[in-house]
């Protein structure tokens, strides 16, 4: 399969602005956008992009693919080339670009601290957790901190989307001292949280489902 990879390039040492550069590649049917990037890199070793696991679990390769924030390793090139057009890659929106497809993620990791991003364990926790309650935490605990939600959603309320996911996951954990009181950190009303849950479902590469508030 022939494909054109159109990559947004920017070198902070030499460039005034970003520009698109095209790479003509031959791709196998099962190959991902990340595989395509590796081929482009061989043609142009100066190209910069983050990668690590290549199996959608580390969150390194988040970028704009056809304008939408996605994981390069999770996106099959064949899904994008159907119309015969180019695969257009840019940096993750909403973050300062450092070089090519690499953005500054320090603010993303810093924003997690907007909630208390660790379990405040009940001193009397006896090691047992009800399996139903444990199950509720399972989906949000698969968050890979890829920053795609931060790039694509503004929930309002001043807390970043990934921090909201972390906070919700901890709030639902029966071992946490604060528990549901954590929802006060979010700066959101019930409706705000509901709309955030819906937006998240539409963008999260791990398809994280945040359950609604626990039944009283």
């Amino acid at each position, binding site marked *: 399969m022939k494909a054109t990879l159109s990559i947004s390039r920017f070198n902070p040492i030499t460039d005034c602005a970003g520009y698109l550069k095209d790479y003509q590649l031959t791709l196998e049917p099962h190959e991902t956008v990340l595989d395509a990037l590796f081929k482009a890199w061989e043609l142009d070793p100066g190209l*910069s992009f983050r990668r690590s696991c290549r*199996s959608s679990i580390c969150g390194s390769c988040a970028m704009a693919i056809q304008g939408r924030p996605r994981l390069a390793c999770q996106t099959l090139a064949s899904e994008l080339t159907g119309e015969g057009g180019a695969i257009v890659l840019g940096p993750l929106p909403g973050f300062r670009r450092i070089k090519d497809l690499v953005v500054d993620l320090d603010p993303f990791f810093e924003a997690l601290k907007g909630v208390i991003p660790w379990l405040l364990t009940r001193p009397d926790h006896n090691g047992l957790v009800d399996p139903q309650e444990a199950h509720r935490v399972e989906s949000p605990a698969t968050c890979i901190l890829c920053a795609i939600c931060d790039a694509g959603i503004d929930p309002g309320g001043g807390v970043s989307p990934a921090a909201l996911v972390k906070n919700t996951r901890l709030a639902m954990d029966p071992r946490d001292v604060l528990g549901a009181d954590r929802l006060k950190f979010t700066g959101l009303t019930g409706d705000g949280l509901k709309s955030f849950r819906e937006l998240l479902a539409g963008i999260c590469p791990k398809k994280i489902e945040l359950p609604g508030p626990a039944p009283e």
Partner: protein
Amino acid sequence: MIIHDIVIVGGGLAGLMAAVEAAPGADVAVVSKIYPTRSHSGAAQGGFNSAMSHDDSVESHIFDTVKGSDYLGDQDAIEILCSDGPEVIRQLEMMGVPWSRTPDGRVAQRSLGGAGFPRACYAADFAGHVVLHTLYEQALKAGVRIYPEWYLIDLLVENEMLAGLLTWRLDTGQTEVIRCKSLILATGGYGRIFQKTTNGHANTGDGMALAYRAGAVLADMEFVQFHPTTLYGTNILISEAARGEGGYLRNSSGERFMSGYAPQKMELAPRDVVSRSIFQEIKEGRGINGVYIHLDLTHLGPEKIAGRLPQVQELARRYAAVDPAAAPVPIEPAQHYSMGGIRTSLDGETNIRGLLAAGEAANVSVHGANRLGGNSLLETVVFGRRAGRKAAEIVSGTDLPAPPQASLESARERWQANFGSSRPLAGGDSCFVIRRELNRIMTGKVGVFRTGSEVAEAVTDLAELRRRYEALRVSTREAPFNYELTEHLEVGYLLDLSRLTAEAALRRTESRGAHFRLDYPARDDVNWLNHTLIKKGDQGPVYEAGKVSAGRYLPQERGY
């Protein structure tokens, strides 16, 4: 000049566990070439072994591990691994790990290969991921200073004592010296020497190679684990949990062929046994399309697959276009884990004062010639914790070593030598080409089945590749996110580690665990019940035999 009491290189499970353990009493920093949550520990799916149910015992875990190691594991280290298991799992529970649960609320456990009991604590099939993120949370809580996307360039050793490290910041392209009293290498394995591997792109064995270059002893580099079930083609890991939950392996006639190789354990025999059996089936013409085997989960039913193996299901759907609830998954063995590594004491200490190692980067040795599923995650937390404790003990009350001088000067010279104009020995040569050839050599000649003549060819070919590599340089320096430079550095590490793996494999004229020599198919306890210790000499690596710490269990025939 940056100063910390303890620097930990690597932000995966072993590194973060060490950091969290050491942080209350010391100023701790984690230097990692990727953000810690990107570490490959997060790709581990199956679970953490720990004997916790009333019908299981630490003793049984010890025996399974010793037997699984083909008697090359050090029994004092294995005893610590298994005895500390329950306590460390409780510690992780209190830190907030979201384990899956039994109906009465205990941590759920499943069967993995080579184990007598279901003893792998799991969180669906995200065990590594959830513990990695929990430890990251704990590192933030403990105030550990994190230097993400900083590469370790060189260990600064003066008078056989660690004085600091030279690092390189990916964001600015500049080098920084960090002084410290103690340094723990938790840099993981080197699976990227192979063409077919489950390992991520970052797994290039940087810490092992740099420790070796700085004079640390490596051990047992010939013992490389091949995971039986990786997606055919991409080699993305399909957890042993898939077989632990009841999955079958079938050949082209649909037969569960493991009955011919391991009639008792079947699909849950240890990985070395299962990987060899798969290749044997393929070799004898019973592979599907001649090249792969089927992992059949269809009989488990959609509910169990979605509940216990959601990641496996998603990976197979996305990367192999197969829904394991509906059809069998094409799989093939691929490199997965390095049993070898930096030789350490039970507390993670190396032969260089102040330098410690833990996790896959280390060889303590709990896995011997073959690791059991669920034991590597346990090793990271048990021995990461011990290394963190030891480092904290080392730094309390001792002064900072004198600022590195001679070692820093030579490290800077080596750094400068990376840059300039290449004078390729072969037309079109580049690090990309060299890496590809290296990968092909290792998978082709130093894989699951080895013969002396092929491994010897590999050693010669690798030396030639090294010569070609030496002629290459990187054109740009001090550029941000210079991945041309990371490639150059990493290919250098891969070349070092490939050579040590191949030479150690050539030297060991027996078959034990994951090291299988077609020309020496039997285990030879008279001559080879010993570790391979490797040290850098003036003329290249020097190999010698090291004593295995024996214990209660004497070598027996290893049937499953």
